[in-house]
């Protein structure tokens, strides 16, 4: 009896080792995309700098540092030019501008501080590797701004077609991604981003 058990042990151990781990993601395509994002994130997480992760399939933007989620932003809806949502790492050129109050000698600096609600709720984030992310609140929260944004967006596009270069080619617009974010979160995102902050676009394994 003991001999039979001893003979079975290696077979059982082999079976346990060969059995693939049970994971929540069983779809190969999804798993491939998640794995690719993880590969890129590993590089970012090894550096002492917070970074952004945008997962359009889960409609979420995250601020992370060392692999830890520092803040979670909900993306209510998104729209992108065809070449704007490919996976990859981008680098933010500049924070959205904000008017900083200037104090005079003898003046209390605590009287007029900048707070998160002073940040814009509608702005562009321009990244290296040619990507522009347009952040805006939903139509219901700011109807006039929504129409203004739509009109401006079409006007920019029309101008790029009309102003062709001497070779006859139309001016190419950079890949553009529009994110609809609740206005408090849009302001918090504008507050949190910093110049040179990396952005990783890809699929995450968030539940």
């Amino acid at each position, binding site marked *: 009896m003991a001999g039979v058990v001893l003979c079975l042990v290696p077979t059982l151990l082999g079976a346990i080792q060969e059995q*693939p*781990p049970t*994971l929540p*993601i*069983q779809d*190969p*395509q999804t*798993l*491939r*995309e*998640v*794995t690719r994002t*993880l590969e890129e*994130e*590993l590089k970012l*997480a090894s550096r*002492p700098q*917070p970074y952004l992760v945008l997962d*359009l*399939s889960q*409609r979420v933007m995250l601020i992370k*540092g*060392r692999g*830890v989620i*520092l*803040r979670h932003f909900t*993306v209510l*809806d998104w*729209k*992108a*030019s*065809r*070449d704007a*949502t*490919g*996976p990859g790492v981008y680098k933010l050129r500049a924070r959205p501008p904000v008017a*900083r*109050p*200037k*104090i005079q*000698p*003898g003046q209390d*600096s*605590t009287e*007029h*501080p900048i*707070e*998160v609600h002073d940040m814009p709720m509608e702005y562009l984030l321009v990244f290296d590797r*040619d990507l522009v992310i347009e952040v805006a609140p939903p139509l219901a929260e700011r109807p006039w701004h929504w129409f203004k944004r739509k009109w401006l967006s*079409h006007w920019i596009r029309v101008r790029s*077609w009309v102003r*062709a270069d001497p070779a*006859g*080619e*139309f001016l*190419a617009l950079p*890949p553009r991604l529009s994110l609809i974010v609740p206005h408090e979160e849009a302001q*918090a995102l504008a*507050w949190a981003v910093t110049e040179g902050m990396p952005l990783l676009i890809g699929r995450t*394994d968030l539940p």
Partner: protein
Amino acid sequence: MMATMKKKPPPMPTLPDQTLLKRADVGGGFQLIRARNQTGWAVSLLVAGLLALGACEDSGSRSLESRTADNEAAEQPTLSTLQRQYESLKRQLARQVPSGAYIVVDTARNHLYIKRGKEVLLDAVASTGSGVILDKPDHPGSQWLFDTPRGEFAVQTRLTNPVWIKPDWAFLEEDQDIPSNPADRMESGVLGDYALGFGKGYFIHGTLYTRLLGKNVTHGCIRLADDDLRTTYKLAKNGTPVMIF
């Protein structure tokens, strides 16, 4: 002698309106190229308009999966290989998380957290930088910016009963002359019982103005209430990571 041969480029497909659609070399997007023929101009605009109306856009209602599927059809690792790769990457990413306690400061919400893994050991109301500007009087064009720095730092110094060495701006704010004697800059009892330095003169310290906790009022340091400061001092050692966003 070698004859130079010019390779004839392959013919480009032409649309009836003489507008060419070519895949861009960089970026993968479609660019419209205007035909030299002026009669094609109006039709070009029409095609461009159609593209603008949504033909060239993805939206939140569509899946991203189909786009990447084509490129990878050729090299398809098995599901179990992918799962092992995924598990391995997850383990490597988990190793990047600080092994001990670490400090997280949310400057938008004015909160300081001390965490270990996913466990929150302390959630404290804090005060962070006001973001205002003060001109340097003897350096035209130069300014102080009272912002809390963002990024990843580490606790470098742990002080008990810290004494504040008042910088120039503290005197300017009070409309006082900047003292020439360094001893006149010392002020004790204003930073609380402890101070934790995380570089470039920035500290996590206490405050006399507890009513301002939760607001952006500081010159860049992070202020805490006495009890929270004591807990922070106990949990944070030299080298403890401080992540500020």
